[in-house]
């Protein structure tokens, strides 16, 4: 049967099992919105800004390991979506973003709401397409989902001119896709796997350093088995938290600029670093010349270009985390390999010495609310099982340090791009993916204002997100850097006017709470989380001058931490 491009769009999404489509209509996508209107299989979620639509799709994808899907119109619709697309590119989130385009014959004419979407998004997508013929549409959508979800995941943009969405053709959705120019590796090279096992068995001061790739590659079970089997310590990156339970004694928590003392010291002094799905980002390595001077490095990554990009690797393994870890475990089994505790006894002794620094310790003096305390209580009241999203800044680091993620996919934040405004829409995506789960958005009073309009979306779709605002009256991380490195000249890092967040939340139809005393935190949180069906916006007035510690100043080595 012949279908229009718009109908093919819907039928293709159904074939891909898409349940939620985040978007915002406009002129160039009106045929598609007409087709959306006439069906019930794919739920369209109307956000209040295209950036929100893409972040919501990211949150959805991060929570449940399925691709996020968004649709926006041409011109400003597409440019508003770019921040979300770039965010997904940096954090390797599988997204398919559809953008409307002006009709084919107007392309290049500076038509109303025309931008070169393919040109603009080229450097921040894994791949992008302009569909020039309706006959190519189904095939292109199939390719887009395939590229977005395989290999190192990432966003794919499909730009659809308005006339293409109204032209008709026979609808045939391809069963599978073959691309001669795109064949991601899956299994690691067996010789390198043997070399990795040799290195594991020989190590005396080893450490696992794992990242977001373990979560994206759904390799948590294999990772946990390998870490337990070896008895080695493990540190996880900001993007990888929860792939291995952080409450486990083998976990040294997060590493990097705001990582723990024990994690960074253990990396620095190790003789073997087992990097899995992590990418030696500058926030992790600090000064690259001082990074892990004595360590041999194993690096498992699906993206060959990640390997030896920043740090020279001794045992490179290109492949998917899950099968590679399974192969390492199988090789260990085959050799009947054991890891005698005495091999690393001295190493653990040393690590436990570093742990005594208790670098995340903090006091609760008097009435003032410490942000760290709020996050500890958030963990307690949600039994550590909530989906926690965050924006970007101090609150993000505190959430990473104090929530103690024990499960994968629970921690959803903007790591690579560092996008303020990510948290609330991402929480919407997570809540839609898991309607019965607790979703909390940890945010700051600066970040939340960047996508605050999405509170209306939360009302429309009855999303009972718990917003945990750590309101210190400053752009906290900017202020912290200005205090440390700019002699306390707080240039533009505070607002002379802030909204009354309680009234603001109420004006959107939600429940607002303001808490400004330490003694009131627990009760307020209990009340908020007891309201299962409501979005509760908690405005915690926290210590305005609290800093995130430990901290490796930019350019410092791993062992050069500021502790308090």
């Amino acid at each position, binding site marked *: 049967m012949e279908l229009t491009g718009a109908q093919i769009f819907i039928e293709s999404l159904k074939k891909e099992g898409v349940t939620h489509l985040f978007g915002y209509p406009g002129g160039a996508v009106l045929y598609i919105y007409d087709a959306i209107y006439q069906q019930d299989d794919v739920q369209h979620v109307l956000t209040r800004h295209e950036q929100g639509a893409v972040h919501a799709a990211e949150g959805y994808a991060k929570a449940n390991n399925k691709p996020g899907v968004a649709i926006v119109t041409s011109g400003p619709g597409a440019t508003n979506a770019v921040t979300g697309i770039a965010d997904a590119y940096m954090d390797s989130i599988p997204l398919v973003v559809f953008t409307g385009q002006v009709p084919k014959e107007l392309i290049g004419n500076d038509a109303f709401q025309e931008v070169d979407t393919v*040109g603009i998004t080229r*450097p921040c997508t894994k791949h992008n397409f302009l569909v020039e013929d309706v006959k190519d549409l189904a095939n292109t959508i199939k390719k887009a989902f395939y590229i977005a979800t395989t290999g190192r995941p990432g966003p794919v943009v499909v730009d659809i001119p308005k006339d293409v969405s109204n032209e008709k053709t026979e609808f045939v959705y391809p069963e599978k896709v073959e691309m001669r*120019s795109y064949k991601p590796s899956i299994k690691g090279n067996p010789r390198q796997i043997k070399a990795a096992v040799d290195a594991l068995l020989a190590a005396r001061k080893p450490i696992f350093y794992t990242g977001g790739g373990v979560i994206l590659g759904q390799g948590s079970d294999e990772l946990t088995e390998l870490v337990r089997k070896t008895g080695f310590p493990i540190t996880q990156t900001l993007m990888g938290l929860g792939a291995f339970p952080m409450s486990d004694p083998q976990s040294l928590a997060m590493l990097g600029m705001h990582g723990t003392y024990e994690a960074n010291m253990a990396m620095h002094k190790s003789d073997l670093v087992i990097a899995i799905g992590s990418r030696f980002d500058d926030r992790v390595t600090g000064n690259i010349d001082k990074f892990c001077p004595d360590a041999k490095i194993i690096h498992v990554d699906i*993206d060959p270009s990640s390997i*030896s990009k920043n740090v020279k690797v001794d045992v490179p393994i290109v492949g998917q985390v899950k099968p590679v870890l399974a192969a390492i475990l199988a090789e260990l089994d085959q050799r009947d390999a054991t890891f005698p505790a005495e091999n690393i006894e001295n190493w653990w002794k040393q690590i436990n010495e570093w742990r005594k620094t208790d670098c995340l310790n903090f006091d609760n003096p008097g009435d003032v609310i410490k942000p760290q305390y709020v996050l500890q209580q958030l963990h307690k009241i949600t039994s550590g099982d909530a989906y926690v999203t965050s924006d970007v800044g101090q609150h993000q680091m505190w959430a990473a340090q104090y929530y103690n993620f024990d499960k994968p996919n629970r921690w959803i934040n903007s790591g690579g791009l560092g996008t303020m405004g990510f948290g609330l829409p991402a929480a919407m995506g997570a809540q839609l993916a898991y309607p019965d789960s607790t979703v909390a958005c940890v945010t700051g009073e600066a970040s939340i204002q960047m996508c605050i309009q999405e509170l209306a979306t939360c009302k429309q779709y009855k999303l009972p997100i718990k917003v945990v605002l750590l309101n210190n009256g400053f752009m906290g991380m900017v202020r912290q850097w200005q205090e440390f490195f700019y002699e306390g000249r707080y240039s533009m890092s505070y607002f002379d006017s802030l909204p009354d967040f309680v009234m603001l939340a109420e004006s959107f139809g939600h429940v607002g709470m303001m808490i400004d005393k330490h003694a009131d935190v627990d009760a307020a949180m209990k009340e908020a989380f007891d309201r299962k069906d409501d979005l509760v916006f908690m405005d915690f007035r926290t210590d305005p001058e609290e800093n995130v510690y430990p901290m490796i100043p930019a350019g410092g080595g791993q062992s050069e931490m500021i502790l308090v």
Partner: protein
Amino acid sequence: MRHVISILLENESGALSRVAGLFSARAYNIESLSVAPTVDPTVSRMTLVTRGDDHIIEQIIKQLNKLVSVVKLQELTPVDHIEREMVLIKAEVNDKTRDHVRMMTDIFKASILSVSPSHFVIEMTGERRKSQEFIDALAPAVVVEIVRSGSQGMSLSDKPLRSN
């Protein structure tokens, strides 16, 4: 160090800008780049000349391979290969320099494509070094315009670089 890379690209709109954009986004340098369709009309072949240390070249190769539009690539520098460049030169000549230019054109096996009372247009094909020597040798005639094709490269191996 100078590196020559042959790339087979999907022959589709935007493929060239994906390669060019990768180089500018990651601050790699392009010394020359030439591209045209091949016997297989679905594929274009590009010869790209770049400079960098081993680490940068390794990254360039990996990043190029990561582009969905890149079908296959081959680094020519480490293998036996030939490299050619075509140069068109417009030289201003007069009674004193005309014979000199003709003689140099013979010596370098270049050819004169167009003659006017005051100018020659000369075609020269060869290795980069040879074309540079030729240009230098034309003095005292004045070279007023020059256009180079950029390097074209091919390995001498019996195994062809093909898309399938």
